[in-house]
């Protein structure tokens, strides 16, 4: 599956080449599109591998996006002043807290994970615009300062592809997060515990590790990652728009599907997310540069179609066998 993910990503780049043409800016753009999707995907892996299916990723992204902008706005009213990194931090905390509540519902109160996850999404979808209306009298925030770009010394000066390395911090974070997540899951004790807790919690428990704790950490991590993703999305534009599906606009669900395509492998998930980022760039550049009026709404659902195809043909994903399952150590 990892190869499926990687392969698809290669396809994406190839397409970029065809339609782009692939240049620094289109790759950089694809990366920017990848950020919220990628973080949602990586976060989702943590919680599901630990045994807690989190289909509320979309909701967590929304919380992250909203609280990032809300914090910027609030900070600007305080003597501290609007500080992007502080707001970024608040957003991560907010999303992590919601994830924690979700975890408590699932672990303490044995909530059905899928239904509870759905609830998280619906609540966030209602709460963000609600709060916006309360705070700003409208579903959309006024615009606030966002992240500014950093140039990576050295790389940024490269001849052709230099522009790729002039990026906002979240993009760098994502590029680091992929491999880092892989390392944590595959090379650390905690990673081993996460896997055991999702595959066979009883085995982990009898080996003397606190399963519930592992699951809490895994789920909260998904909140942290989504906080980053959502905040990155909102602080790139410097505004939160809460109409319709909100500015998150389904990216959380694409993230969910990205890690399925990547078959729970962080690298695969990263590539799959990048594939979706790339597809977006492609369809936009086709629109821009050619006169063939392609129905954007239809192109827009390509990711979802791909996921269905992958789920059916590329093969079954190896879902952790105890995911979705309550665990209670006797006594």
């Amino acid at each position: 599956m990892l190869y499926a993910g990687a392969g698809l990503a290669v396809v994406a780049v190839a397409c970029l080449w065809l339609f782009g043409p692939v240049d620094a800016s289109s790759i950089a753009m694809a990366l920017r599109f990848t950020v919220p999707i990628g973080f949602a995907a990586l976060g989702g892996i943590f919680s599901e591998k630990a045994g807690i299916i989190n289909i509320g990723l979309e909701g967590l992204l929304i919380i992250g996006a909203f609280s990032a902008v809300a914090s910027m706005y609030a900070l600007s009213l305080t003597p501290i002043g609007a500080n992007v990194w502080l707001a970024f931090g608040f957003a991560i905390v907010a999303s992590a807290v919601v994830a924690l509540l979700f975890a408590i519902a699932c672990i303490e109160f044995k909530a059905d994970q899928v239904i509870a996850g759905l609830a998280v999404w619906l609540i966030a979808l209602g709460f963000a615009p609600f709060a916006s209306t309360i705070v700003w009298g409208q579903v959309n925030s006024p615009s606030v300062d966002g992240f500014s770009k950093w140039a990576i010394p050295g790389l940024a000066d490269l001849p052709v592809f230099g522009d790729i390395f002039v990026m906002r911090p979240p993009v760098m974070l994502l590029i680091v997060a992929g491999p880092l997540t892989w390392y944590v899951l595959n090379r650390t004790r905690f990673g081993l515990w996460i896997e055991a807790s999702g595959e066979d919690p009883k085995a982990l428990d009898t080996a003397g590790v606190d399963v519930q704790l592992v699951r809490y950490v895994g789920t909260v991590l998904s909140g942290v990652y989504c906080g980053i993703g959502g905040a990155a999305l909102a602080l790139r534009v410097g505004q939160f728009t809460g109409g319709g599906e909100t500015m998150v606009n389904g990216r959380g669900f694409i993230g969910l599907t990205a890690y399925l395509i990547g078959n729970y492998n962080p690298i695969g998930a990263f590539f799959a997310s990048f594939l979706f980022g790339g597809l977006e760039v492609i369809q936009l550049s086709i629109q821009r540069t050619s006169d063939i009026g392609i129905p954007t709404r239809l192109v827009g659902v390509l990711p979802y179609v791909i996921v269905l195809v992958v789920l059916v043909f590329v093969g079954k994903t190896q879902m952790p066998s105890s995911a979705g399952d309550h665990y209670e150590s006797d006594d």
Partner: protein
Amino acid sequence: LVNDGNGSGEADVTIGIVYSTGGLGDESFNDMANAGVEQAVSEFDIAYEDAEPEEVGDMNEMQRQFARQEDIDLVCCIGFDHQTDLEQNAAEFSDQQFMIVDSTVDADNVISYVFREHEGSFLVGQLAGMLTEIEYAHGGGESNPDESVVGFVGGRESSLIERFEAGYIAGAEHAVEGIDVQRAYAGSFNDSSTGQEIANGMYNDGADVVYHSAGNTGGGVFESAQSNGRFAIGVDDDQSISSESFSDVIVASMVKRVDNAVYESIQSVVEDSFEGGTTNDLGLEEEGVAAVIGQDFEGELPEDVTSSLEESRQQIIDGEIDVPTTTDDS
């Protein structure tokens, strides 16, 4: 929500206003309508109630809720999505007065206001075309004369947005034969980050000016203009004022005086001069639409640019230039 003009309880006229789904805070269309009511509130002794539909599906019931209320004298329906519902409701509530913006409903208890957005869009298109040709730098942006590229960002495809697009293209063509006008739709009026990336793409391809007609999605276009040091053109409202923080790149806005339309209709009710069944078709001539130079660019644009804009404006009014309303022929 009940907003009473001068807190003094009993107002002699009450207005009900139903916005379009973009919602207040789009810093353009709906906010303009709201501005119109507020202006009326400040000038006459009136109160108003407003409603923000979440989905088009909510509009019908909101219209009806207002229509039913005895004390409401005029129901303002902002946006073409109201049309079909209003056709039915106007007939059903024949003694209620309505007004609709952006669409025509011929019933004798409805005033319709439609705008010839393509005319205004033509002018900003021409402005964009001229700017990308010359070497021009001001405020937060600069243009590059080597490439003749301009951009247009739409929200969701619909024939209304197509009018903006068509007029803009015609204007740009008018300025520069065979100019490359890049166009793309974000697929949503709320996805500002996609708007931003579309604009990024256009600026990367050498566009100097990007015009949007995409509601909240447009916020991303301005953000992109600012970070790329290029220009953008706002819509509906003078966005160099409503989106103050981007005034250094918003070279102009295609203003569509929805506020006037709303204000007028209220005034007609207050002064008992409400003439149902009329359709006000507002273009450059009626000053229903206009190309307004951004506040930072007031008097900062090259003389010849402003003069030829004025020229085209006159020609359009005189019918010497015929502005297309669809992109088919482009």
